[in-house]
């Protein structure tokens, strides 16, 4: 027996909701594949195209840093830069696709009943699949220009999982925000640009640490620690202390919880807002 009552900006039963999403994981993958086919992302040229744009970005950043720092750059800087730019590209693309996931599905949302969360989840998944060829390039760069293969590299996998968790949470936030403020999607690229500058992409975490004695404020940015681990692992084969992993995971889980809460709190109203 299902009971539909007035919408009081409340939460659905979380366990049931989660089960409903899990039941639809095949849907998420299938819609993702279908949309990728549609955008030709599944073809070789499509894949090249999606990698080309972050690569160009990385090239520009590289020149920029070379000019500004007068050739003094950290070791394996190009690999560090590529690693950071690819991840940021994934997060921006995901945030962007998620932002439009609800507002672009007006007909679907007003005519079918399903847990709305599967729409932004699909977009994060699509963006993740899109990241995979970029990771292949990164691996080639790591071997040819960087420190080369090592078991230490495996630490990048749990870190990627943390970044994925963050992206899901962030995606829920942008998806909800765009329902109420349609200019969210338009503002996102600027927002993401600033966020890139505030993260260890154009510079390394160590460079920031050398600037002052009080360096913990940099972890206010929830992406700082995951990116520090990510590029440190890949470009320097560094390993990181437990507390840094906990900061990374904590920030990502916080974003996931925040995003999920905001999304679920408002979801019941989407049908009359799109």
């Amino acid at each position, binding site marked *: *027996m299902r009971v539909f009552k*007035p919408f009081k900006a409340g939460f659905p039963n979380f366990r049931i909701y989660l089960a409903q999403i899990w039941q639809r994981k095949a849907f998420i993958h299938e819609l993702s594949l279908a*949309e990728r086919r549609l955008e030709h992302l599944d073809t070789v040229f499509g894949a090249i195209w999606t990698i080309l744009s972050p690569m160009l970005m990385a090239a520009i950043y590289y020149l920029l840093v070379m000019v500004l720092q007068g050739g003094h750059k950290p070791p394996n800087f190009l690999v560090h830069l590529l690693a950071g730019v690819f991840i940021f590209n994934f997060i921006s693309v995901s945030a962007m696709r998620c932002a439009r996931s609800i507002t672009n599905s007006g007909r679907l949302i007003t*005519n079918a009943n399903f847990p709305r969360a599967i729409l932004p989840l699909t977009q994060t998944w699509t963006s993740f699949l899109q990241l995979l060829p970029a990771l292949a390039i990164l691996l080639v760069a790591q071997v040819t220009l960087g420190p080369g293969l090592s078991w230490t590299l495996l630490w990048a996998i749990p870190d990627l999982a943390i970044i994925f968790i963050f992206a899901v949470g962030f995606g829920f936030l942008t998806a909800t925000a765009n329902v109420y*403020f349609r200019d969210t999607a338009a503002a996102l690229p600027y927002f993401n640009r600033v966020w890139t500058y505030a993260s260890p992409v154009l510079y390394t975490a160590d460079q920031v640490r050398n600037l002052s004695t009080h360096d913990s404020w940099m972890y206010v940015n929830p992406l700082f620690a995951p990116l520090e681990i990510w590029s440190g692992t890949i470009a320097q084969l560094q390993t990181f202390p437990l507390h840094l992993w906990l900061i990374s995971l904590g920030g990502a889980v916080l974003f996931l919880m925040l995003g999920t809460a905001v999304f679920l709190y408002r979801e019941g*109203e989407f*049908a009359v807002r799109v």
Partner: protein
Amino acid sequence: MSDSPVISLHDVSFTYRTQISRKPNFMEAVRNAGRGQRSTKLVHALKNVTFDVAQGEVLGIVGANGAGKSTLMRAIGGIVPPDEGEIRVRGEISALLALGVGFNPQLSGRENVILAGLATGLSREVVEEQYQAIVEFAEIEEFMDMPMRTYSSGMYSRLGFAVATNMNPDILLIDEALSTGDAHFKEKSSQRIKELKDSAGAMVIVSHSMATLKELSNRLLWMHKGEVIATGEPEKIIDAYSKFLKVGNINAVMEDF
């Protein structure tokens, strides 16, 4: 349990709140902050609607354009939450509202059908099993790999109807899907609804075709401007409604109802 209604609406009201400004955006929200109530237009689409649908019953709904029929279906399908009142529904709902399939008109019919099935929570195996039956019923096999945006409206509704009726729903909600099919498909879908009458829990059909409603439904409900005007025997309601359509005045019709 089985003699309690499958669908039960109690005093349900629903209001659309549409902001007059084109699309809500942040800059505007900032500019309007502190100016009090934003300019929203209210449409009372459902007003204190109360009715039950029993096990095995087919309820037809008639009403002029904008009467609130589609809104009512959305409320039963759990798509829009009521502002007041309560809706109780027993079983799985398959809603064919405004041609339910169509996740993305750019995608092929095949992809849309599979996605529609998966979205309702069916497993991949079940969906693939149903797929063949759906295509056979819709009789548009050669178009299944074409993007749905290239479909004629009849093909659209054929596929939508086939999907909705093949997902083994307990409750079937059909909003005007029958009206765009050709005579052959209309006949076929009427047949199908009669078959489903026995297996499905309940059905609610919205249609502008009196003949369809007379043929299929056990009971009719007439809505006007969000209110239930009358419910009862199909013949009787159709007579009253047809008279209203000619006269255009509810009171005149209801006097001798």
